[in-house]
């Protein structure tokens, strides 16, 4: 009995008292503090979504999607910017996909583990945090001016590919590291070469993770504005793109364009475009999540 009293508490009912009661009170309170912190983010997002839907839902129509931009807000649409976004994403992915996979394979499988590799890895992580406008400045100097591509789709795609590379490389590295060493050993023990092992076992095993990383990076590229404005994509496009060397605009640039107009009607257009862009990004993220879940279960 004496021992029980020394640590507090009621031996008959085992109900908390003293220090235990205090610790449990703090524990219960922590739950509400954490919930409140979470709600701040959710509430802001909910309000933004509601506000955007409220302002832009009425503008969403097939005409809005298929019309060129216009001086008249009620006739203006997203045709050229949607096409521009599609045109720029294809070469961006076509560039970023093989480069990031190759880089990740080299780093994880073949690179000698030395100081240089550590520096490369560190810089990759840093590059992922560089503001996109810096990539825009690089793109302007290198692709638009030096390579004389002008403010073209190709220059934009090069810029976006550079911008998402650090993300996709890191995601691919993670995915490659997830492949169990026992699979590598099993393959090597059969007399497969290192490359055969990577190609037949490591890459297929890592592919879901790599795909997820690329899709998430694409959903970032699809919303990219600053870097593309920097290379000169802030233009009035009233034609369908037909070549990689065309001038172009993209949906987020069109949104930016509309928001800075004084007329209220253009703001509604911007809100409508935001809804469509959000839907596109959400769809991409959903696809990424589905890929991830499906392969995790296997």
């Amino acid at each position, binding site marked *: 009995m004496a021992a029980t009293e020394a640590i507090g508490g009621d031996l008959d009912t085992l109900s908390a008292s003293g220090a235990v009661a205090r610790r449990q009170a703090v524990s219960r309170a922590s739950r509400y503090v954490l919930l409140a912190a979470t709600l701040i983010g959710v509430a802001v997002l909910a309000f933004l979504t509601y506000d955007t839907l409220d302002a832009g839902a009425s503008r969403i129509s097939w005409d809005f999607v298929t019309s060129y931009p216009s001086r008249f807000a009620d006739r203006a649409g997203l045709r050229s910017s949607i096409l521009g976004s599609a045109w720029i994403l294809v070469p961006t992915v076509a560039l970023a996909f093989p480069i990031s996979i190759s880089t990740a394979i080299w780093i994880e499988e073949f690179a000698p*583990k030395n100081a240089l590799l550590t520096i490369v890895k560190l810089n990759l992580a840093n590059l992922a945090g560089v503001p996109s406008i810096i990539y825009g400045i690089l793109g302007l100097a290198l692709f638009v001016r030096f390579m004389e591509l002008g403010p073209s789709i190709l220059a934009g795609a090069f810029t976006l590919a550079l911008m998402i590379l650090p993300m996709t490389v890191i995601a691919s590295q993670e995915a490659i590291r997830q492949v*169990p060493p*026992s*699979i*590598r*050993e*099993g*393959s*090597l*023990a*059969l*007399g*497969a*070469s290192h490359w*055969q092992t990577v190609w*037949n*076992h490591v890459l*297929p*095993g890592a592919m879901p993770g790599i795909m997820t990383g690329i899709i998430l990076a694409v959903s970032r590229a699809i919303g990219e504005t600053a870097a593309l404005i920097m290379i000169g994509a802030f233009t009035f496009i009233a034609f369908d793109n037909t070549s990689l060397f065309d001038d172009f605009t993209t949906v987020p640039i069109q949104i930016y364009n509309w928001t800075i107009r004084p007329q209220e009607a253009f703001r509604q257009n911007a809100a409508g475009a935001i809804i469509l862009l959000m839907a596109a990004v959400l769809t991409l993220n959903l696809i990424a999540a589905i890929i991830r879940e499906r392969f995790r279960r*296997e």
Partner: protein
Amino acid sequence: MDGTEMRESKVTSPRLVDVRMPEVRTGESLTPETQPGARPIIEPPEPAVFTLRNLNLWYGHKQAISDVTMNFPAQRVAALIGPSGCGKSTLLRCLNRMNDLIPGVRVSGQANYHGVDVYAPKVDPVEVRRRIGMVFQKPNPFPKSIYENVAFGARVNGYRGGMAEHVERSLRQAALWDEVKDDLKKSGLALSGGQQQRLCIARALAVQPDVILMDEPCSALDPIATLKIEDLIRELAQQFTIIIVTHNMQQAARVSDYTAFMLLAHEGGPGELIEYGHTNDVFTLPKDKRTEDYITGRFG
């Protein structure tokens, strides 16, 4: 041992002469080496596939195995037993150069395979591994179909001929065919643990190796699956040289012709070969007190 020439596994060494892999299994006939004061180690009288001479291995600065000299005879089962951490798995992985995958591994001495030191500078580990198959502690089938699991090794090694027949032959050899013949497209991971391990054996057999190394192949299996693998090992020994690491002394007694007992002879020191001989002799008349203590369960 101090006088032994040390070398990195990939650094050129002037010591080796002919490093070509012999086309046919020649076998090196052996006479026991007479070393004054040598440990009670039997050199099996049969032609040897492996002859290890003063083999040492270091992980960085830590020596893991010391001065191992022994032969592995052809078409026999040799078991490596000993307490955890005594270097028996390390020794096994020396033989097909799987230790190369671990950074900082250094080997000295000789691991002669049909007379060619597998650590000689010109030896390609891929050439070694396609002749010396390996089965791991935990079944590790590829996350692909049963068929693909078996066909992969044969395909990368340039097997010419009917692949379907070859897959069937390998699965039959591994006593798995009857259980899987109707769903070869099923994932290898869908099989039970024991079936997975036999699939891994079939996969190794499909490469048509000469030696099969088994690293505690039954430690993750139940007693019935274990029994099947043990029967299979006896069966395979008619054709292949098998070296098996096991924690299970009854298993060593059941399946092996020769047994080697390894031990960390000194606290914190490297693993050493304490005794090697006919399984019967090692288990009934151990020459070394430490072997006897281990076998009778007095330590380890």
